[in-house]
């Protein structure tokens, strides 16, 4: 049974990280070059970690399945990044950012981790500005801010609607610099297909070259996974099409615990689904809720009318009505469920009835169309490209969509999993967002983990590993893992079934959305749990994977990823079924207050559920890490 020691330092909350940094072990500069570190992924967390570790003198190998590290899906984050700079003089502080994040996560995150996140948030902005990230500025030349959901201060830094792109390109530039300097060996088009564990420690990975099909073995002193989230289990999501869970899932099958898999985030403002051919849902940044007002008709009969013809008196600005103090900036989980509720009442807009209006007419009256264009122009353009409608003339139609996963591999305070030597950063871990992530906090966490946390904490682990003690990639553990990977590839190509991979992915996505989506019940989850195993069997018996193993073969890549989703989806449902409470993004209809808010059960579920693999066909073990709230009182979230 896995040991889950969170290793949270003792002492006052605000001193823990400082104290920890002075107490953990260091690796001396001459020894750093003797250690090799593998970093998988080059999004915000992976690129920033790889660059920083190389700057420190470690030898870094960075693996990405994209053709360039600049393609990682962090690039698509639109709205912004939070930091407790208090440049607006509106009363922000490290404590407030910490408190908002803990509360936003519905009291299911670790206090110590979240406080550290808030502390280093200020360093991130400094770092990014120094790298040349062109954040928005005021006329005096200083940095501008906007507001995001779940906060009553303006602490979000942004670069138009492309903040993720600019931050990622900043990290990519730091990574490129270290590649050019020889500190990082970059492997593009390289997908990690297994983790190699030697003597109980993570010591390497097995990689498939996506162009040549070659399977290679790579040994290291430590392995860092920064491979993002697993929302594509749902097939339709705001994730990139290639985003996948394979790296973390295969690490799970090698012994790393998977924490809170059912904590998924449904983002309230996305462009609604339009047809069954659809491959992707597009987000409309939460920043739009600063100036856009969300409404549906008061009367069902009005739902097909031209929205501009519906008089003010017949509109229900339901977020402003239900949550007067946060209004349209209520946290994401709350805003999403509210949208679902009004649509379930039959008041949803559009053909399908699954849509609510996001209306900018007030903002245009206040700021002029040019003012709105300056703030959100590219988002209006995206909306127009997809729907052929102008958000300036007609209210946008939006609906919630899968956007982020708070769950992920379990890590301790050092971001190390229960498998020693395996570190997990960014969305791939579970650590900082509890049961719901606030807007503009994902970019903050990715960069905090990569720039400012793991460069310290990895040294603490490496100091316990003798330089030069890493195993050879010819060790039996590596050969066994590589053989298994080759075997799986051959197996896929040999099935020669009837249906393409995409059909299975669509069917799984529907099961997950219906059973384990925005609202879950024991019955829907049990139904999903009954449907997934037969679908998985059918997949392995009748999927059609054309082509060969030794060329670029996109069907083969997809088959491996969907095969993993078919297992992970089941674990998500199992986790959701076991967690008999509602918290954040995990809404069990059986557990709600009369007004429809989440009813937590702190007595029985104030813990992290960390699932441990027990072998194929075996029920995984549910381990528990109790969450101790020493500094904040757990209370019912109130945004009214």
């Amino acid at each position, binding site marked *: 049974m896995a040991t889950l020691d969170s290793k949270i330092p003792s002492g006052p909350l605000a001193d823990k990280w400082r104290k920890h940094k002075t107490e953990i072990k260091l690796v001396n500069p001459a020894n750093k070059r003797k250690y090799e570190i593998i970093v998988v992924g080059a999004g915000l967390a992976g690129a920033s970690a790889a*660059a*920083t570790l190389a*700057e420190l003198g470690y030898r870094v190998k960075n693996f990405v399945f994209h*053709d*360039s590290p*600049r393609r*990682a899906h962090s*690039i*698509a984050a639109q709205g912004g990044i939070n930091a407790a*700079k208090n*440049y607006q003089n509106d009363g922000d502080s490290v404590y407030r950012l910490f408190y908002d994040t803990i509360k936003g996560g519905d009291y299911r995150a670790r206090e110590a981790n979240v406080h550290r996140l808030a502390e280093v948030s200020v*360093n991130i902005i*400094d*770092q*990014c*500005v*120094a*790298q*040349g990230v*062109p*954040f928005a*500025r005021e006329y*005096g*030349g*200083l*940095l501008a801010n906007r507001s995001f959901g779940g906060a009553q201060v303006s602490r979000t830094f942004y*670069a138009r609607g492309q903040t993720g*792109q*600019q931050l990622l390109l900043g990290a*990519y*530039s*730091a990574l*490129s*610099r270290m*590649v050019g300097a020889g500190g990082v060996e970059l492997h593009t088009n390289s997908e990690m297909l297994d983790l190699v564990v030697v003597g109980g420690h993570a010591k390497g990975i097995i990689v498939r070259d996506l*162009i040549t099909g070659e399977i290679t073995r790579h040994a290291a002193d430590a392995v860092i996974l920064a491979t993002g989230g697993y929302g594509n289990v749902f097939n339709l999501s705001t994730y*990139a*099409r290639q985003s996948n869970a394979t790296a973390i899932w295969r690490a799970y099958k090698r012994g790393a615990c998977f924490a809170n898999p059912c904590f998924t985030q449904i983002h309230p403002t996305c462009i609604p689904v*339009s*047809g069954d*051919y*659809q*491959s*992707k849902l597009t*987000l409309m940044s939460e920043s739009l809720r600063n100036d856009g007002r969300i409404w549906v008709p008061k009367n069902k009969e009005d739902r097909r009318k031209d929205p501009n013809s519906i008089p003010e008196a017949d509109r229900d600005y339901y977020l402003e009505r239900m949550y007067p103090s946060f209004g349209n900036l209520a946290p994401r989980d709350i805003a999403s469920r509210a949208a679902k509720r009004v649509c379930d009442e039959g008041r949803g807009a*559009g*053909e399908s009835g699954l849509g609510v209006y996001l209306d900018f007419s007030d903002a245009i009256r206040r700021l002029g169309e040019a003012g709105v264009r300056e703030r959100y122009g590219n988002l209006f353009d*995206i909306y127009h*490209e*997809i*729907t*052929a409608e102008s958000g300036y003339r007609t209210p946008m139609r939006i609906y919630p969509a899968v956007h982020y996963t708070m769950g992920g591999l379990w890590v301790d305070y050092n971001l190390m999993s229960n498998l020693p030597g395996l570190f997990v950063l960014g969305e791939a871990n579970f650590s900082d967002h509890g049961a719901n992530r606030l807007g503009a906090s994902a970019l903050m966490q990715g960069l905090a983990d990569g*720039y*400012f946390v793991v*460069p310290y904490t990895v040294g603490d682990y490496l100091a316990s590993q003798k330089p030069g003690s890493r195993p050879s990639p010819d060790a039996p553990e590596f050969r066994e893992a590589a053989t298994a990977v080759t075997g799986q590839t051959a197996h896929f190509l040999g099935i020669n079934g009837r249906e*393409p991979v995409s059909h299975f992915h669509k069917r799984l996505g529907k099961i997950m959305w219906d059973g384990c989506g925005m609202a879950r019940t024991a019955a829907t989850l049990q139904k999903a749990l009954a449907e997934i195993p037969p679908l998985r069997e059918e997949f392995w018996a009748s999927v059609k994977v*054309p*082509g060969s193993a030794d060329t*670029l073969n*996109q069907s083969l890549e997809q088959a491996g990823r969907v095969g993993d989703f078919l297992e992970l989806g089941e674990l998500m449902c199992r986790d959701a079924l076991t967690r008999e409470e509602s918290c954040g993004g995990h809404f069990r209809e059986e557990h709600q207050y009369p007004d429809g808010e989440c009813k937590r059960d702190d007595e029985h579920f104030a813990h992290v559920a960390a699932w441990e693999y027990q072998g194929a066909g075996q029920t995984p073990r549910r381990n528990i890490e109790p969450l101790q709230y020493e500094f904040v009182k757990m209370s019912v979230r109130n945004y009214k």
Partner: protein
Amino acid sequence: MVAANSSQSISVTLRVWRQTGPFQPGRFVDYPARDLNPNMSFLEMLDVVNDGLTVAGDEPIAFAHDCREGICGTCSLTINGKPHGPGQGIATCQTYVRSFKDGDIIVVEPFRARAFPLVRDLVTDRSAFDKIQQAGGFISVRTGAAPDANSIPVPKPDAELAMDAAACIGCGACVAACKNSSAMLFVAAKVSQFGLLPQGQAERDRRVLAMVSTMDGLGFGNCTNQYECSAACPKLISHDFIARLNRDYLTASLRQAFTPAPAGADGGAG
């Protein structure tokens, strides 16, 4: 209105470049795509065609794609001779079937350029862009060494112009559109972003010289001011940045030629 035309499906013929590897001969193959919903994206249409090919026992068409929202720069199709297709200021993934008419023959090719060797079908190798970045597309600042963010004021117009340049998604459409396969717009965007900001001044000369020399070494051509690049750019990055690049390059070259190298550049106290 999306809802209004969603019922009128169209059928087209895709004339697609197929090539199994860089050293095999390629050819065009026609594929019918029938009963398409106009609100489908171009890549979703290819998904559907590929599923059909798979079921029929053929190999699906390899094409690069990922975010499908116009920001990652992965998708890279030349549609009817235009990189990223008929639209302006969008990437391939933001092209919709509604841009075509029933009965159209649509020619689909990869981004063609000497510095982007073909991998398979519609996929090319654009790692040359990464190599240019690695040569100097950065500001050298170690993690943790940065001063407070507001200690470096940047005039708003400069920040806005830097952001215009920084919007580049590194897709390579500029190269594919250029008759010389020049990467000047790509390089100009990065050089200008940093050159416009106070943080970028210390390495300004070194950066432009290193990036341009790497660009030349990788087989990209030169700019002859046709501006096809900015017309094809999904982020509409202005060719004015190329003028800025040329200015920076000239200044840096002159400074390099006429400034004596400092003695003992690495000389520390020992």
